[in-house]
């Protein structure tokens, strides 16, 4: 559904993305993960036909984004970053306008359906200016879905929402992702972990990793980290633990808590537990510190010693 080859985009002398290649299949939810200014929005704007790339090719639903831009735009639903909406229109008028621009047949029925999907039945006649951030987000999502697009491109769909709204939007995306292609950008790692079938990690305009969230996790989680907590004094506990065969290192991290790292491919936790009890410590808890996507992300993007580029005009089109 989405095919990207060697995509490059320059803003004047500044290179936003360089030589990106990836693809996404039907029924797949692909997460685009990266710090601000990594080139996520730029890539999405190219895929939606908003701006042409400097180099490389991209096709969506079988149409080239430059040569057959209108065909692409018919088939893509897009939620831009910051959700631009017309404040001076009502929810209904706005969705009707977007539906008409997309040539939706039986627009009124379709709008009723979509308003129900995003749970905005009670506010159809409200002016958009009166809506909360979460509601605006849902209207933006409704707008992206109103013409039943084959491909959905969502730029930071859950930003600024409260936890229950986030859950709602995520469920909605997963529902949609069963039969359509969804590409979403986020800098929240747990979000990508939860809802995406595949994650592309992008940093400074390059794809630095691409895999399922599970594989990414296991790829870097060769060794295991475990935290152990005892009641009372942990004096000497780190020495005891590092004496166990298979433990690489152990150190006290806070009162009563010791963290240790084990060799890959061997579970030494039972040995550690036996040792601890033998030495008369009162064992309270032992818990594995699995490497989260967060760690992986930091690990991958750390290679470059420079701090992440937080400059935002990379992404947004600034006033002249």
């Amino acid at each position, binding site marked *: 559904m989405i095919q990207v080859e060697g995509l490059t985009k320059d*803003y004047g002398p500044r290179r936003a993305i360089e030589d990106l290649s990836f693809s996404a299949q039907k029924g797949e939810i692909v997460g685009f993960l990266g710090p601000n200014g990594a080139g996520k929005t730029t890539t999405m*704007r190219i895929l*939606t*036909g*908003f*701006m*042409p790339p400097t180099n490389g090719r991209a096709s969506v639903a079988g149409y080239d984004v430059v040569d057959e831009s*209108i*065909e692409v*735009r*018919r088939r*893509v639903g*897009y939620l*831009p970053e*910051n959700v*631009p*909406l*017309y*404040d*001076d*229109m009502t929810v209904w*008028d706005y969705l009707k*306008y*977007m539906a*008409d*621009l*997309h*040539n939706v047949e039986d627009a009124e029925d379709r709008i009723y359906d979509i308003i129900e999907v995003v749970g905005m039945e009670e506010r159809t006649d409200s002016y958009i200016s009166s809506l909360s951030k979460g509601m605006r987000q849902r209207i933006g999502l409704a*707008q992206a879905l109103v013409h039943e697009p084959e491909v959905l491109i969502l730029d930071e769909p859950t930003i600024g929402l409260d936890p229950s709204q986030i859950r709602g939007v995520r469920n909605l995306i997963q529902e949609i992702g069963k039969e359509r292609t969804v590409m979403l950008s986020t800098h929240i790692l747990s979000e990508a972990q939860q809802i995406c079938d595949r994650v592309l990690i992008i940093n400074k305009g390059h794809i630095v990793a691409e895999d399922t969230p599970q594989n990414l996790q296991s790829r870097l989680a060769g060794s295991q980290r475990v935290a152990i907590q005892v009641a009372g004094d942990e004096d000497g506990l780190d020495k005891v633990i590092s004496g166990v065969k298979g433990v690489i290192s152990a150190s006290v991290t806070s009162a009563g808590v010791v963290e240790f790292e084990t060799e890959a491919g061997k579970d030494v936790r039972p040995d550690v537990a036996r040792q601890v009890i033998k030495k008369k410590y009162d064992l309270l808890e032992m818990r594995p510190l699995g490497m989260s996507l967060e760690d992986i992300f930091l690990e991958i993007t750390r290679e470059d010693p420079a701090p992440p580029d937080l400059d935002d005009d990379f992404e947004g*089109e600034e*006033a*002249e």
Partner: protein
Amino acid sequence: MKNIWTIASREYKLYFNTPIAYVIMGFILLVLGLIFTIAVNDVALGGGQSPPSVNAIVHGPLAFMLVFAIPAITMRLISEENREGTIELLQTAPVRDWELAVGKWLGATLFIGTIILITLVFPIILNNLVEPGIDQLMMLSGYLGILLVSMAFIALGVAISSLFTSTVAAFFTAMGINLVLWWLIAIPAQLSSPQFAAIWRYLDFGGHYNNSMARGVIELIDLVYFLSVVVVGLLVASVSLETKRWR
């Protein structure tokens, strides 16, 4: 074509949602009403005086006010979309950039057209007051001129609006250009040598209206002139929307 109409009708409806449009409409109709009342009163009291011409009491003041009013109507058409980011929605919808420009222009033209249509009450009343009625063909020719002038001003306004993100900048730029084309261009036309003067005079909006359609003379050259200004304006707007994508 459907896209153009969708965009035009949204813009048209939106005017009736915004105070500025009502203020402009109210102001124009109020001023024309006052002028009209005074003029007609004079005739009624003076008896023997010749009846006032529609051109003098309706078309002249209307054209004068439109020079200022049209920039206020067109200023936000595209600049606001640029500023709010909603242009991204329009430019990722299956709408061509020129359809967007034409749709915006048509919406504003319909709104100004509505105001112009309402002013028809003045000649209709006048026609009933004076014997043997007014010169209707001349009146219609004047209205054709007013409409063409408005269409050209609106096209320029759309083009200017597409170049800015600030509505205020778009307003003053458009007004400045209107003032030059309507009045100030007559100055270089008078000062320069004959062959250059012809060029200036050709560009003079006022000349193409005052010396022909306002007097009941419809000439092809004037129609061609105003319609080409419309085309140029909309072309500039389309190109500007297109080039914004490349930056």
